[in-house]
């Protein structure tokens, strides 16, 4: 029609209809619309035609035809019978692409495999934690009673409950089949042939072994925990203490009395109960007979209660029972709002904001942190993929153009890219699983209680891994997929570069900045931990640990041993103590600063010469070793903190005299300067030093620094001449002090590993980017060379952009790591840490820069050194 050129056809209707119809075919309808419009113009004029046009567009929008086609089109794309063969085709194309772009594929495979390995660890730990305590056959009927206390400080939920609760519920509510009381804090030290073996476990009711499925290897589950002072050992604890396999009936001697072994239990696995030994609950009640538990509605610390309901009882039955219990507690503790909850056994872990959990406390917060770290390491790998795919856009744009011309729809292009990335991430999952298997045991050993988790490859873990890999595939593929799907086939086929708008290059840049920033933060973390560790070791704790040999004095005549050991000419001085400095000190002494109050403080029994031997400094008085304690006045030393702590309770007529709760009068003859008797991460606590050879466990020998080995063998000979039954043991105090900081080494290992991963992945990405960038600029570089550019100027041209990125990364990572490490992480690691030093930051930046520059240098030198004639001749 000739009229077409005279009048402008309104496009908005067409656009609206196309948008509304999405993928549906509406060519015929649009054709009809246009034809009718021009008919109207020729017969009725422009204004009326326009009105008519609006009416027709609306009628089409609302028409049954359009909406039916729209619906059909949607179904057609998702569920065509050819879907399977399309995916098959995509897979083949993807594999061909992998083969053809080997560098790209390897970079991404390695990056994703490294990145995913940590996440796999996190996933398997989480799966194992959610599966905890599922093995108990009666798990559906077992509940723990928790206590919720509301006061002016907020609401807190405790896993423990009042002592009297068990008796109250069991005697009043018949639907309860049995109650299991568990008290934590059973930690006897076993005297095992001269050395001390600490055990940790619970006081538990006899029903513990019947309600819960912890099978006994030896012993009778019905009676094993019924008599006082009977002990059930785990298999590994039994192996530690006995050589024979079945030690039932034997006695063990501990600092809490003698116990008879009544059973050996299989080591608890996949359970939040975490113990080496169980003792009967009445061991506790006989030891503390002054407090009748049945009426104790005051204390709930460390007192846990599990209920097993009768079969068929609905858990709601407990609600009213607990409400009645609340009435009792409300009477006795009117100032607190107390309520009780029942938590199913299998819901105890992972816990969220529950205080004083029994056993292993897999709280959700820690889990999330773990997942966060895993994702943090994975992100750079995902970014690599996005960056490298977008960088390849130039090469693939033609392929996409042809696909589109052949009739591929946006959805199909997206699918193709997603299939490709999912395939890639599934392939790298294989590598990730291999790395996972390698690092699994190391990591699990570092976790507290990690050995109880059953982490292995099974159907559930493998399928979650696969699901995770697919998820990661979608995440990393979605941006390239959308980018490629929107390419205009006409532009790409004409040979024009796809519009790389500022958004894409900004995206690439910011992803890069993130990667490098993250690597830098991890690297500074490594430095900060090393710094903290060496700071802790070099720190002047306030006592001398150099050349001091510790000899445990167990089962030997202490007086004779000291005298004889002192005869060795290399021994400069000798003293004794009950606890080693640099090691955690339990609070053991109750002191009465006035008539009403008590304070719990640490006590150390020392022998004469202890203060001089360790070169501790006195703030006032004498060491008092010459003064004899009389029967009603004991001579003691204290530290300054003690005096400060005591002052809080008010003035006393004589500040140098105090009473202990067991009725002894003590006279302070010397005050020591404050020093870190305990490791640096503990606050300095008030300590009383009492003289007693009887209570001393260790001899501390200051040795001449020369020929230490022969000195030790001499000492061994002397020891053996005194008593042949007790083997001679010795170690250096310095090593013992270092042990306290072992946990920093663990953190260090984790950080080194994570930063290695992050840096490797980021450098892989950088390498790839530089490679593609230089490849795309081959011709430009050739021309520059022909025009006389030197190699040096080429390096500058090629690396300028990447240098900028790295510098921006440094600018954001340095302040962040200062804040994170100095204010958050290091104080968490060690209370009195040195903070973040400038050296770590500088080293981190230098390492990052040199890594980045090396990667850039390798690639650019390859291009810069090629003959420009060659690169210009080839297309």
């Amino acid at each position, binding site marked *: 029609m000739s009229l077409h050129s005279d009048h402008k056809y309104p496009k908005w209707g067409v656009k609206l209809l196309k948008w509304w119809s999405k993928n549906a075919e509406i060519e015929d309808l649009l054709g*009809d619309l246009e034809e009718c419009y021009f*008919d109207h113009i020729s017969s009725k004029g422009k204004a009326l035609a326009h009105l008519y046009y609006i009416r027709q567009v609306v009628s089409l929008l609302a028409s049954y035809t359009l909406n039916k086609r729209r619906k059909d089109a949607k179904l057609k794309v998702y569920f065509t019978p050819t879907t399977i063969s399309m995916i098959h085709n995509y897979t083949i194309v993807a594999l061909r692409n992998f083969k053809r772009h080997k560098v790209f594929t390897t970079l991404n495979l390695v990056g994703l495999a490294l990145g995913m390995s940590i996440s796999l660890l996190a996933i398997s730990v989480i799966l194992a934690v959610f599966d905890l305590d599922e093995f108990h056959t009666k798990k559906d009927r077992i509940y723990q009673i928790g206590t919720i206390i509301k006061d002016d400080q907020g609401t807190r939920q405790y896993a423990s409950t009042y002592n009297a609760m068990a008796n109250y519920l069991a005697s009043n509510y018949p639907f309860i089949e049995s109650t299991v009381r568990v008290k934590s804090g059973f930690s006897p030290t076993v005297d095992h042939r001269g050395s001390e073996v600490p055990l940790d476990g619970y006081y538990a009711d006899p029903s513990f072994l019947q309600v819960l499925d912890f099978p006994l290897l030896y012993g009778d589950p019905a009676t094993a925990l019924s008599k006082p002072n009977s002990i059930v050992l785990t298999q590994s604890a039994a192996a530690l203490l006995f050589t024979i396999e079945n030690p039932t009936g034997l006695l063990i001697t501990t600092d809490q009395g003698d116990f008879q072994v009544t059973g050996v239990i299989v080591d608890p696995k996949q359970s939040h109960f975490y113990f080496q030994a169980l003792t009967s609950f009445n061991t506790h009640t006989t030891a503390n007979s002054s407090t009748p538990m049945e009426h104790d509605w005051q204390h709930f610390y460390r007192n846990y209660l599990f209920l097993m309901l009768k079969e068929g009882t609905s858990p709601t039955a407990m609600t009213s029972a607990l409400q009645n219990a609340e009435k009792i507690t409300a009477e006795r503790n009117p100032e607190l709002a107390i309520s009780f909850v029942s938590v199913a056994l299998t819901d105890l872990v992972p816990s969220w904001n529950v205080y004083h959990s029994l056993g292993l406390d897999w709280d959700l917060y820690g889990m999330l942190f773990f997942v966060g770290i895993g994702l943090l390491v994975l992100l750079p790998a995902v970014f690599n993929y996005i960056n490298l795919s977008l960088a390849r856009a130039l090469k693939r744009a033609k392929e996409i153009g042809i696909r589109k011309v052949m009739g591929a729809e946006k959805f199909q292009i997206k699918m193709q890219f997603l299939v490709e990335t999912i395939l890639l991430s599934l392939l790298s999952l294989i590598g990730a699983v291999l790395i996972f298997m390698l690092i699994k045991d190391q990591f699990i050993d570092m976790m507290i209680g990690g050995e109880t988790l059953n982490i292995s490859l099974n159907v559930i873990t493998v399928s979650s891994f696969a699901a995770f890999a697919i998820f990661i595939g979608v995440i990393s593929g979605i941006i390239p997929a959308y980018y490629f799907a929107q390419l205009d086939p006409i532009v790409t086929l004409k040979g024009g570069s796809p519009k790389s708008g500022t958004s894409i290059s900004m995206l690439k840049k910011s992803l890069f900045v993130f990667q490098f920033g993250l690597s830098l933060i991890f690297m500074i973390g490594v430095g900060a931990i090393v710094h903290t560790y060496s700071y802790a070791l070099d720190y002047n704790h306030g006592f001398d640990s150099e050349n001091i040999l510790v000899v445990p004095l167990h089962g030997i005549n202490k007086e004779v041993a000291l005298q004889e050991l002192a005869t060795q000419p290399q021994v400069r001085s000798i003293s004794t103590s009950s606890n080693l400095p640099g090691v955690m000190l339990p609070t053991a002494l109750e002191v009465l600063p006035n008539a009403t109050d008590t304070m719990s403080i640490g006590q150390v029994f020392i022998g004469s010469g202890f203060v001089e031997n360790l070169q501790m400094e006195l703030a006032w008085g004498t060491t008092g070793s010459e003064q004899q304690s009389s029967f009603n006045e004991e001579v003691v030393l204290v530290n300054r903190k003690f005096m400060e702590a005591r002052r809080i309770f008010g003035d006393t007529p004589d500040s140098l005299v105090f009473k202990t709760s067991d009725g002894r009068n003590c006279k302070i003859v010397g005050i020591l300067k404050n020093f870190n008797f305990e490791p640096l991460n503990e606050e300095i606590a008030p300590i009383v030093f009492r003289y007693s050879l009887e209570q001393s466990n260790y001899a501390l020998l200051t040795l001449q620094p020369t020929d230490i080995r022969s000195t030790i063998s001499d000492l061994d000979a002397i020891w053996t001449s005194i008593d042949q039954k007790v083997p001679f043991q010795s170690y250096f105090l310095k090593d013992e002090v270092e042990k306290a900081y072992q946990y920093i080494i663990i953190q260090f290992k984790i950080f080194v590993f994570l930063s290695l991963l992050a840096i490797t992945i980021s450098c892989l990405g950088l390498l790839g980017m530089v490679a593609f960038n230089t490849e795309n600029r081959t011709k430009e570089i050739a021309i520059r060379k022909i025009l006389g550019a030197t190699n040096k100027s080429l390096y500058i041209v090629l690396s300028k952009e990447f240098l900028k990125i790295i510098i921006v990364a440094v600018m954001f990572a340095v302040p962040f790591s200062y804040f994170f490490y100095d204010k958050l992480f290091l104080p968490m690691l060690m209370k009195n840490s040195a903070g973040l030093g400038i050296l770590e930051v500088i080293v981190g930046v230098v390492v990052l820069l040199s890594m980045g520059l090396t990667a850039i240098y390798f690639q650019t030198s390859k291009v810069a050194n090629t003959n420009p004639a060659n690169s210009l001749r080839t297309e």
Partner: protein
Amino acid sequence: MKGFLGEFEELVLLTIANLGVDAYGVSILKDINERANRNLSIGGLHSTLTRLEEKGYLTSALGEPTNERGGRRKRYFELTASGISGLVDMKSLRDELWKNAKVNLSI
């Protein structure tokens, strides 16, 4: 017999039969608007066409690209056998009713 034809549906089918091979959206629309003096919209017509196609009275196929209409193809409609028999059924019903009318229907 797949249900009765509506009055408008019958009109559309008959128009298509009248137009023969040249039955596409705009020609049908114009024909109906002229003969029946209606002001029918494109959306309305196509809705009916699609429903008739679903019922099996019509088939449609896209034609060749044209020089008009921005190069867009036309969708041509054709009666199917069941479309024809539907029209025949309608007509015989109507004839029967005319024949048996007790009132004189001639003017």
